[in-house]
Structures are given as C-alpha cells and as structure tokens.
C-alpha cells in the first residue's frame, strides 16, 4: 500500500468531523421507532469512494467511536469495527471511480459502486457486527442477525440513494466540462 499523503490525513480528519456532525441527523422510518436511516453513512461512502480504503476505514472507525463518545458517553465497539469495514471495502475501488476527475457519471461506475457498497455492508452488518456482539455480549444469535439484517438494509438503501446522488453530483461539478455553448 502506498504511503498516506497529507491530503489523505486531512481527509481522514475532516471526514471524521463531518461524520460526527451528522451523527444526529436521521431520516426516520415510520415503521420502526428509533431506527432511522443515517445520512452520515452516505458521507462515509463518499469519502471512501473519493479517497480510498485507508481514509474510508479511519473515518468509519474514528467517526463512529467519537460520535458515540461525545453524544452518548459510551462506545459500542461491536458497531464501531463494522463501520470501519464499510469504509475500507468501498474504498478499494476508489481508483476506478475517479470521482474527482469527473469519472463517476457513467452507469458502469455507479453499478460497481453499488455492488461494492452492498458487499461492504453485508460483510459489516451480517458478519462482523453480529460476531462481535456474540463475542462481547453473548447476545442471542437470532437477535443479532435480525439486527444486522435491518442495519444492512437501511444502510444499503441510504448509501444506494443518497451516496450515489452525492457522488454523481460531486463528480459532475468537479470534472471538466467541454462543448458548452451559450444559447439565445
């Protein structure tokens, strides 16, 4: 893996700050009280897709731990690690997406992004989180997998919609535009 550059260090820091700020922003789902979709997951996916796996992993880990700590004075470690997994896995394909160069506008990249985020979320919420919950708290198997499945679904949906929207919009804004003509 290549050395972490200054821009990556700053992206980790400021990405974490943004993730923490958005901790309390939720899009409520009517059916289940207290479970909302978390826009901050879309931001995590955004940072991972733009800056790569290390930034994605660190933003997920630090962001979740710090957010838990300063809002709730507690850290749910069994949900902190999966967050890092989401960021790291999505980040693997950052080079292919070329978001900053304006490459994230074609269907191929949007599909690749959504496949990678679905895989990342599956690994995080259906494998890592339940396993850690069982390891740390000996929670019942059926409960943790049910919880994991809900988290998986919510996160796949929010990243799939909001994450894709943000990435496409950013890619369109930062990429170069050519062949523009003023119209009468």
């Amino acid at each position: 893996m290549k050395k972490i550059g200054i821009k990556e260090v700053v992206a980790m820091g400021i990405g974490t700050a943004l993730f923490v700020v958005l901790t309390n922003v939720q899009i409520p789902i009517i059916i289940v009280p207290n479970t909302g979709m978390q826009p901050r997951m879309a931001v995590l996916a955004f940072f991972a897709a733009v800056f790569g796996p290390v930034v994605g992993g660190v933003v997920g880990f630090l962001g979740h731990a710090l957010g838990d700590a300063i809002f709730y004075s507690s850290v749910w470690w069994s949900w902190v690690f999966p967050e890092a997994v989401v960021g790291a896995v999505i980040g693997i394909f950052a080079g292919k997406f070329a978001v900053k160069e304006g490459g994230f506008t074609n269907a191929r990249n949007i599909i690749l992004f959504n496949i990678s985020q679905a895989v990342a979320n599956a690994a995080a919420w259906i494998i890592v989180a339940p396993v850690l919950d069982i390891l740390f708290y000996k929670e019942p198997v059926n409960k943790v997998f049910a919880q994991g499945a809900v988290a998986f679904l919510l996160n796949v949906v929010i990243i799939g919609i909001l994450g894709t929207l943000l990435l496409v919009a950013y890619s369109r804004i930062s990429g170069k535009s050519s062949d523009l003509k003023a119209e009468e």
Partner: protein
Amino acid sequence: MAERNSPIIEFENVSFKYRAQREPTLRDINLTINKGEKILIAGQSGSGKSTLAHCLNALIPCSYAGEMSGILRVDGNDPSKLGVFGMSKIVGTVLQDTDGQFIALTVAEDISFALENDCVPQDEMFATVKNVAERLELSDFLTNAPGELSGGQKQRVSLGGVLACDVKILLFDEPLANLDPATGKRTIALIDEIMKNDDLTVVIIEHRLEDVLYRDVDRVILMDGGRIVADKSPDELLCSDLLIRYGIREPLYIAALKAAGADLRSESHPQHIESMDLEPYKDRVRTWFHGMPAHNRGQASESALSVEGLEFSYNEKRKVIRDVSFDIKKGEMVSLVGKNGAGKSTLASLICGFLKPDKGVIRLSGQDISDLSVKERGEHIGYVMQSPNQMISKPMIMEEVGLGLAVRGVAQDEVERRAGEILKICGLYPFRNWPVSALSFGQKKRVSIASILIMNPDILILDEPTAGQDYMHYTEIMEFITDIRRRLPVTIIMITHDMHLMLEYTDRTLVLTDGQLLMDDTPARVLTDENICNRAYLKRTSLYDLSVRCGIDNAGEFAARFIDFEESRRGEAKDVQTDIL
C-alpha cells in the same frame, strides 16, 4: 545582520504553465527583490500574482504540476530543488484563509506546528512559543481554541507559526481579505514592525492597495495577464493611470483628487493622505466641490421592514442583541456593519426566523411576522449566504434556480417559466442548461441570488456579497445587485466589512457594536465620524482627511458628492457600453 541591497529573490525569464491549461499563467518574469525590501504585488484575479507567490514557496512546481522555465533563486537556492518543506524554512507563507491555516487545537500548538514536524524537542518549543507569543501579544491566549479568537488574532497566530521557524522572507497571500477594516490596518502596522525588528524581507500579495499603503512600501509590482506591467514606487504609481487600466482600485483620496482634475506629481508624495503635500491641489479640490450638485437624499416611503426593541441572548450571561430598533423603507439599499461578533449575523438570523427573539417585534410591511415559520418567512425575506458554494445544491443551473419553487409544489412548467424569467433578469439565460461548475465565481454568486429572487421576496439579505473579490469582480457583483434593485421591487440589506461598498452602493448604514445600534445614517456621515469609526472597528475614509486638509468643513457632504460623481460616471460608462452593443 543581513546585508541590505543584495538580492534575495531573483526571477530571470521565468514562465510557468499549469498542466491543465493551454496558456502559460506566468510569462517571462524578470524581477529582483533585495534583502529588507517590502514589496506589494498587485493585480486582479487571474493576473498571475498568486502563481508568482507559489513559485516562492515551491508549491509550484512541487505541488501544482506544470512546465516551468527560466531561473529562480531565493536566498541563493533553487526552490524546485529544495521542495516545499525545504523552502518553508526560508519563506514563511501566511495564507488568506486564517481558519484553514489554523490547524491545531490551541494557539500554542499551532505556533509550534512546524517545529513539531521538524522534531524539535519539547523544551525548545516551549521557549520559542513563549517568545513568539510575547512579540505578537498572544501570551494570554496560548490555550485558546481557534473558535475563541477573532479574525485578527487568528492571523497573528498564523504569523507566529511562521516566525517560529526563523524564516528570512514573509509572504502574505491577501492578508486583508477576511478582516474588518480596523483590524486590517493593525495587521499592516504589525507586519511593518516585525520586518523592521527581525530584518526580514516582506512580499504582500493584495489588491486592497489603499489599506496596504497605510505603511510605507518600497515598490509595487503590478501584474496583468501573467506579466509584470509596472514596477514602481507607490508615489509614482499613484500618479499614473496604470492602476485603473489594470483593474486595481485607486485609494479614494487619489480618485477624488483626479476627479477634481488635479495633475498629481510624485514629488507631493501621495502615498499617505496624512503627509501628502496638498498645496498644489487644494484650490482645484475646493472649486470642484462647490461646482458639484448637492447630494440628494432619497425621499422616505412606506416601511418595508421595521424592527422594534429587539433583544436576544444565547444564554443568560450575555445579550447578543440589545434593544435594537430601525425602520427600512421600501426600495432602500442598506448596509449593516460592525466588527466580527457585533451581532450582525445574529440580527439577520432573527429577521429570517432562524432564531427567536427574547423581546421585540419584527414587522414586514407593517405586519408582525413572529408567527411565521422559517419557510414562510423565506417567501418574503430571501437570505443569500456569503459563498455561493454554501447554497448551491444541484449540479444544473436551471434546477438550482427553480428549486425553491419546486419544493413548494409549483408545477414543473411554471417553475421553468419563472426560472427562465429570473435567469433573463440575472443575465444567465444563455447558460440555463449548463452545469453550475462551468461558471465563474461571480456567475455562481448570481445563480445563488437568482435562486432566491425566484420566490419574489420583498427583502433580500446578502451576507458579505463581495468578500474576497478583487475590484473587477466586486464591481461586477455590485452592479448586478444595483441592476436587480432597479428592475425588481426589492429592498436590499447587505452585511459587509467593505467600506467602499457601503459608501458607494448603499443609501443608509446601520452600525452595530456589542449588539447595540450605534448609528443609523448615511454611509458618508458614518465614515467621516471618527468616534463612531473607532468604536465600530471601521476605518475613517480617506475622503475625510482630504476634505479637511483642503479646508472643506462638511466632510460628509464632500464624500457624498464624490460618490454621486463616481456613480454618474459608472452610469455613463455603462450607457456607452450598451450603445456599442
């Protein structure tokens, strides 16, 4: 002690082209700067002045890719060989964005940031930080976080951060852009003091010429189109017409002297109005003043927005707004001024309904609006943030402008029709199908204003509409706003630090200090009142000094007549332009 008059910076036929661009940004630069000199580099955006600065600290060619030719020596070194890190020990750069440069959590840590990176032992850092902080009067703030500091203090911290490294050259990139006028003046004085004590060479990149010239500058380098178009002493430059030709604002007293028909000579030392020899020009100025028509104050009409006994506090300790009352008439253009933290933004937030007042009434065309929600008020009171990037949320222009109507459930074709109308008014219609990213900063600003105007607001509140813009872009934005005011029945309130803006474009100024309304009068009167200026961190306009020194007692009227004169000239220029088109 460094030897004076020996070159420390030498450009020999330096050219530079960014990789992404077709045309070179710097062309054939030849420039020598000697040890101990203080140099001002002026030029409009895109003139190449920032690129020139980046060559000095090696960001070019080390961080920005491109082709460089020619020879550059800085203190005997080739910056491209030493790299950014190596150059940081010779050239200390103070950036425009004080929040971006303040990286650490506290003042002390930020001053020592470069030392930490250089693995300096802790005890040594303690000593250096103590020393630097004392010189910059920061000793009482060492454990403060950036959020607890004023803009001027943050800038002193940035300066401390580079002074801690014992640099030889200080490079300031638009140091005045984010400061209120009085703080800007102090910054210039501080730079002067430090360079004299430490025997440094100073390079200042800035387009706010009048403010920099507050203290002596050895030479002004004027840039345009990537070339150096003038390299003169300030006295010589001010007497020429080069500044106007290359889009730099002349100091107001110089512009007024020229308007009066004075033929300025560098022997009169026009760099400082206080010490300039005015004898040869006095009569002309007086004659001109008496020949100009008296300033005509607009007639009061119906009330558009009135505020009565407004009070607000975030907590019980400190009131942020104290008993503020005023009445803005329909169609007026009003400036809201005062130093950072005086309560300007809070007042705007109260008017828009982002915050709820503890006491007092806000009336819109006589109607109490305290029951209206933020969204409902938004249909009458439009609020435009400082940076268009903070508002633009759609990639396409048409979508962005229509958004306010679309979310209110207006039908799609109606949204498009109204958006088309507003885009025509705002001069953006030809670009309606472009992505926002293809626009210049000034055009983006127009998009953000258009996206508010589409809701037909009665009141438009603009937060720092011209912050950080050079004279040309400033004029572009302000002429646009003036035009909007002519075409639409809208009352405009501008929050600003820019005294030129309040003087040139607004009818009335509300001066806030510590949450209280200190003065509510014409800008010419506000800016010629020394007491008010001091209390509100404004800078008295140099037109005041000029009129007093020429024996004209009514400085406010003098300033007002000069502004009227300038406005009519701008109007003529515009008419000529339209005729050609």
